[in-house]
């Protein structure tokens, strides 16, 4: 018998012919936050939760995203930052990109480690947990883009901000490669003391438009 057939046969033997009917799963936990996506209170909550992870949030109007991205890069990289050190997702809106920046293409992923910062959009943001989700779409870029440069700038628009985890997951496509980001990379492995910045980007800046 193949390993596959044997493991499956063991499972059936363990459960027996007369399987107990499992309890019905009752989903009486909060499905929605109650506030619609983009509600001003949700934006406030998102800012609070993201800053709690020691990330930085810069708020702006939808028309000011480009200038605010540049301000974020200034803050993350210092006064001497150059657009050539910044790589952006290929589908990032033109007017969000710093002039002269590098645009990700099909180069080997490890070459992205040469860039100081990356700029991406997000697919959804979950206010209650301060979570940004990138879904590998052209605006979010491939996974390595938001991983290798040491400074990550994510642009979130108000309509992308939902209240709860169930609302966030419902907006996502589980067939795409997803990355949920809640603050900069961190570890609690030494005496359970949280230290921000290990292998992923050590600096996370969020531009919240709207």
């Amino acid at each position, binding site marked *: 018998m193949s390993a596959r057939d044997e493991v499956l046969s063991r*499972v*059936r033997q363990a459960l027996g012919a007369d399987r107990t009917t499992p309890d019905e799963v009752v989903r009486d936990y909060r499905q929605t936050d109650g506030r619609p996506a983009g509600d001003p209170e949700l934006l406030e909550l998102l800012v609070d939760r993201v800053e709690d992870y020691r990330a930085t949030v810069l708020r702006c109007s939808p028309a000011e995203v480009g200038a605010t991205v540049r301000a974020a890069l200034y803050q993350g990289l210092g006064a001497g930052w150059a657009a050539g050190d910044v790589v952006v997702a290929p589908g990032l809106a033109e007017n969000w990109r710093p002039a002269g920046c590098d645009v990700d293409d099909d180069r080997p*992923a490890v070459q992205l480690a040469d860039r100081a910062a990356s700029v991406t959009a997000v697919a959804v943001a979950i206010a209650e947990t301060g979570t940004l989700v990138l879904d590998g779409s052209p605006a979010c870029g491939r*996974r390595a883009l938001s991983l290798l440069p040491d400074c990550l700038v994510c642009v979130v628009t108000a309509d992308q901000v939902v209240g709860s985890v169930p609302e966030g*997951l419902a907006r996502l496509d589980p067939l795409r490669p997803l990355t*949920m*980001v809640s603050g900069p990379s*961190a570890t609690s*492995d030494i005496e359970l003391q949280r230290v921000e910045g290990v292998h992923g980007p050590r600096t996370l800046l969020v531009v919240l438009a709207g």
Partner: protein
Amino acid sequence: MTATVPPKAPTFLGLPTAPRGVGHLRGDQSFPDAARGALRDGQLRANLGHATSTIRGKRAKVVDELPDWAQLREAGRALKAATMARLDEHLEELERQVTARGGVVHWARDANEANEIVTRLVQATGTTEVVKVKSMATQEIGLNEALEAAGLDVFETDLAELIVQLGEDKPSHILVPAIHKNRAEIREIFARTIPGVDPDLTDDPRQLAMAARTHLRERFLRARVAVSGANFAVAETGTLTVVESEGNGRMCLTLPETLITVMGIEKVVPTWRDLEVFLQLLPRSSTGERMNPYTSTWAGVTPGDGPQEFHLVLLDNGRTAVLADEVGREALHCIRCSACLNVCPVYERAGGHSYGSVYPGPIGAVLSPMLTGVEDNASLPYASSLCGACYDVCPVAIDIPSILVHLRAEHVEAQERPTAEAVAFRGLSKVMSHPRLWHLAQRASRLGRLIARGRPTLPNALPPPVSGWTRSRDLPTPPKETFVESWVREHGS
């Protein structure tokens, strides 16, 4: 040196348990013997006390924040129970979906078979280096040893696993494997083992984390094969999930050409929507965060993004034997958050190494004996005071105390000859059912006052078979008079 063939592992209801001679589910010593050394290690107790009290406080704060925690917990429990009842169907669906999206699914009856599969897959790529994401399943089966025996270099990339690997130590906690080490000890390990490390490295956790970043950066960038575990696998979509903090997981899941994921068969969940429950329960219970820094999900292979070759190894290694136990199968619901370790008064004092298995603490005390057969880990079901704190914090409401009692009963019933304890309790039962014998015995117990010589407890070093009871318990010195005697003295008969 002659190679010894380990005896065949025992079976439960005809289903094989995890084989002997491979992996890390069995210790060299019984729990009380192993714990004795740990209890004398003041540094270890201080490190554990500090770390577990910190994490308990953080967990309590973020759990209290959710008004629907009880409902989420009950949904998590029910989801796991429903999944187990149809486990074969969910595994077949998972296999279909992963295959449809370009992944290759392998099945492993036990640790040996899983190790062989992974070794063969790594060798087929022609590389000799493997980077690893922290994974309990690969610890359980001793994958690193198997790969190293095949001449491959294995690099653990989680900070705590790196500390354990560099220190040639063993993990002692599910979430924080180096919880038994403090910052000064970790600084010493890094200074001694990392080539070219800054000699001025201090014991500041930030500096230590940066030293690990520098040490591993090049390895990540040149790695061609990674091995990971999985926290969840969604059957309906074939979506795998890894929950982590540092970004080492993302490096391994994203940069190499080949990804091999080893996953216990109980990690499957039926639908994508089920993650809305578990992604709320897990981070709050484990690190005490609203959400862990990084969660990665992927379904098969995505052209132009991440590994272009993906293998999923589905591991039994005793899990079907656990599933066959109608009381014990709840232990398979565990999502490896480690909240039960952090609240356990026994774990906090004895430490993870005393359990002898990669699964320590309350969940380990039930899971390890069931995976190996209770006779191979016979002391673990007793490594608990049955206080119930583990059950209270478990995010999927596993009734660990009841399983412990169930396993104790199973162990006792498996004894062919009566134990000294059984004989003693039979004698006690006879004495307690005859008032005259009882009074006599109570008066006789006063002899214990002579042995105690004025101390509040009797000495622990009593001769066998009494030592079996006293070596891990304090017996109070018998009082001068019994309750009945003092009643008669004060109130008359």
